[in-house]
């Protein structure tokens, strides 16, 4: 009962949690109802919801801008190349050795 009441009278702290959870799991009917009521009266949480969607887009790496991405340092590249050559030499398809 207490839980029910608190869901019908959400504050922003709880609403922000539900807005995040809504991206992870289906909300219960009561949660959806409480959230809708809160959003009717709270423009900040409405903007928060919108900004959560934007965050998803913002953190995806720039596939179209390879120049902005870090590159494998040359010394590491050389080291890995040697290890790969070794592995291909001893562990490969040819039996024996």
């Amino acid at each position, binding site marked *: 009962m207490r839980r029910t009441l608190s869901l019908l009278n959400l504050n922003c702290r709880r609403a*922000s949690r539900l807005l995040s959870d809504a991206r992870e799991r289906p909300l219960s009917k009561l949660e959806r109802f409480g959230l809708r009521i809160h959003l009717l009266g709270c423009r900040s*949480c409405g903007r928060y919801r919108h900004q959560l969607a934007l965050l998803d887009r*913002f953190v995806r790496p720039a596939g179209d801008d390879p120049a902005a*991405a870090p*590159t494998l340092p040359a010394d590491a590249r050389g080291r890995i190349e040697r290890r790969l050559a070794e592995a291909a030499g001893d562990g490969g398809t040819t039996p024996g050795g």
Partner: protein
Amino acid sequence: MPIESNITVAEPPRPRPVQWLGDHGDALYAYALRRVRRPEVAEDLVQETLLAAVQASGGFAQRANVRTWLTGILRHKVADHFRARHRGVQIDAGTLEDDALFDKGGQWRAGVPAWRGDPLRSAEAREFRAAVDACLAKLPATMAHLFLSRVDDGATTDELCGALGITPDNAWTMLHRARLRLRQCLAVNWFTTRPTPSPRRRT
């Protein structure tokens, strides 16, 4: 009429690890570095990934996209890295500092001002990406990894929990904290300090 024998017979595609390194090394490194943050760890993970790929290259012939295949292996290596880090250790979901965003009654202390414009399509897109990365870097490493796994890799709750050995509620709490902090960080470090050009701004 004799046929010249220098026509090469088509062989099944052979794994070319060194070529993988050349073609995909940078992309794998960028992915790993964003997750684990330390260059030397990222380098090791790239090496382990390519070595594992050599071992597994029997299955390679069916793979249409080498980049996707290698990234999938790397993703598992990164997950192993975080699982090993947290074996038997409680993961800090972050609490106190996020509460500072709300007042005693649970209202936003500073409200949630609108974000105007689309920074990814502006001339400052590159700087904006750097700002996003800087905000990600301020999160605890596991929290950032969880958020990126969710958003960038599209991992499900089950996958997140299985990979880190945490409960769904724990995972959702951390995702919520990550979102609160990222939003706050971008609000402070980008959207309030760099108003996108817009004709009318109230002062």
